């Protein structure tokens, strides 16, 4: 019995990590995804996972759509960390935490922003941003 529970727990945990939460829709120049210590070159159509770090080079941009239709677009020399992304409408479980570490980001909220805006948080090194169904431009300088 305990073994079965452990199996169930480990399989749901594995699913939470491996299941994509979005995909890359647009790309110009060079961008990379850091996932669990490994670096992957970004490509159109490639999946995005919870906890991915997304980074662009100079003269580059990348556009991403997440499961709840949140759209993210990074300008050149930019980096964001998708720290948390939970979208489980059947269980009404929502949680989004995106850290913007440098550069420029266009953020457009999706279904979570409508159903549960308090579950969405954007963070920069110096501020937090709460949203209510919103398209925002965010720039973080330096470091």
């Amino acid at each position: 019995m305990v073994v079965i529970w452990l199996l169930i727990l480990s399989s749901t945990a594995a699913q939470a990590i491996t299941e994509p939460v979005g995909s890359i829709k647009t790309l110009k120049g060079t961008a990379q995804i850091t996932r669990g210590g490994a670096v992957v070159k970004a490509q159109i159509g490639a999946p995005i996972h919870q906890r991915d770090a997304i980074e662009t080079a100079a003269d580059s941009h990348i556009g991403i759509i997440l499961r709840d239709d949140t759209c993210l677009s990074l300008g050149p020399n930019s980096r964001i960390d998708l720290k948390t992304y939970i979208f489980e409408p059947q269980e009404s479980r929502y949680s989004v935490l995106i850290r913007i570490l440098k550069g420029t980001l266009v953020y457009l909220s999706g279904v979570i922003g409508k159903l549960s805006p308090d579950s969405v948080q954007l963070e920069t090194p110096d501020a937090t941003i709460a949203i209510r169904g919103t398209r925002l431009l965010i720039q973080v300088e330096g470091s």
Partner: protein
Amino acid sequence: MGKLVWKVLLPLLGGLCFMMVSGCSTPRTLVILIPDHDGQVGKAVVTTGKGAVPLNAAGQTVVVHNRHSSPKETTASGKDRIDALFGEALAGEPPLPEKFILYFQSGTVQLTDESLMEVPAIVDSIRKRQSYDVSINGHTDRVGSFKANIHLSLQRAMHVKGLLIDAGIRPKYLTTSSHGEGNPLIKTVDGMPELRNRRVEVIVR
């Protein structure tokens, strides 16, 4: 002698300029609220340990110099400033997902005639966008039991997935989910037939 003075002064001046630029006049965080694609303007709140500033008008701009200072509203940003700072990021915005709703005969996985005719448009959209991420979400009305409707809504989603695969779309791009009767477009009492709730929503990203 003059040269020596400049050798000392220049780095000092440079450092002063740098401090002015990075320390004061250039914010560490800049946030601008802009309209959604349908023209609506949402709301946001920028918060630090020292205070919070709400945004609710298009172009409204808030800067934060560091986490120990309060956010400050500055002059609203016009198109020129937005393009200068965010032109590249805006150029990379993905096209908005496209949504299709297909309707079903009561208690079955049989599409209505109109909805069956709409399937080729979904296939076109997937191809045109080169979409690798299509959600197929099944729903029912409140005829039948809650449990039976979870099953029926999954069958509806699987049926639509089958139609798209038959049209040549690769299965690995298609994700199904079943919502049963729990996520209606039109709220009804239990047992009420409602065509608009007997549906599959296809979202092409």
